[in-house]
């Protein structure tokens, strides 16, 4: 039978995948994707704890995380578009070099 620890272990693995992405990627858009992966992993953990402890608080926090992710994407993509218009690249190394 599937218990709480199964879900938490899957959530931890997905979170670590996102963490590897954040550490490894140099492209800003890919960094955003890795952040989404981490947020989704935390949502799984919240929903699982909410189910197994029969408590709605976990689901509430998952809703607010989704709202935060949506606004993060809206603002972040605007900033990425401005950066791309200005520099023509989204690579972090190139952007760091351009600072001069």
């Amino acid at each position, binding site marked *: 039978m599937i218990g709480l620890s199964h879900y938490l272990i899957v959530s931890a693995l997905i979170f670590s995948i996102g963490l*590897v992405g954040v550490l*490894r990627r140099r492209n800003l858009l890919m960094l955003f994707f890795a952040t989404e992966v981490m947020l989704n992993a935390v949502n799984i953990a919240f929903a699982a704890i909410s189910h197994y402890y029969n408590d709605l608080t976990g689901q509430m926090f998952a809703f607010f995380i989704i709202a935060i992710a949506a*606004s993060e994407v*809206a603002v972040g993509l605007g900033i990425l578009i401005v950066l791309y218009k200005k520099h023509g690249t989204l690579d972090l190394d190139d952007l760091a070099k351009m600072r001069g």
Partner: protein
Amino acid sequence: MYEVVAFYLFSGLTIGLFLVTVMSKNILYAMTSLAAGMVLISGFFFILGADFLGVVQLIAYVGAVMALYSFAMMFFDATRDIKEKNTNSALVFLLGGLSALVLVLMFAAPIHSDAITALYPMHEGVGNAQDVGIVLFTKYLIPFEVAALMLLVAMIAGIILAGKKMDQSLTEDMSADEILIQKDEK
């Protein structure tokens, strides 16, 4: 039985798809696998009985966020493979693996669960959407309103950042025709 099969299927597929997201060199592959992984995560929510959360995940993540990403693809060159200098890749995988190990050990550790009591317990015979609605609009009303305000601020910020000529007033300094003429001259 079905729950077990569904859990292992969803977890395997989700981990695989997110690995593609993190490792792929092509932005389109990364984006589509991220969208597919999010659909499967809503499957986790449906198994866990969080129906409303699953629907919100489908609408907000797969619908809105991924549509926003694919809309932003129009600004970037999405067909070309991205070139990245991946220095010290072994160190990154070592750190990622270590953090995975630590997180798994932490989450798998036995906890004293008798002391944990539900703050807002679910009700028997009431659907998940009703339960969520009651708690969200009574106990979490102020965070809900603040989240609405935050989404409004984010929407305005997105429009200002992505829109053209938003730093100029269309009415005061020059008329709209003059701006259009100026654009044509460029």
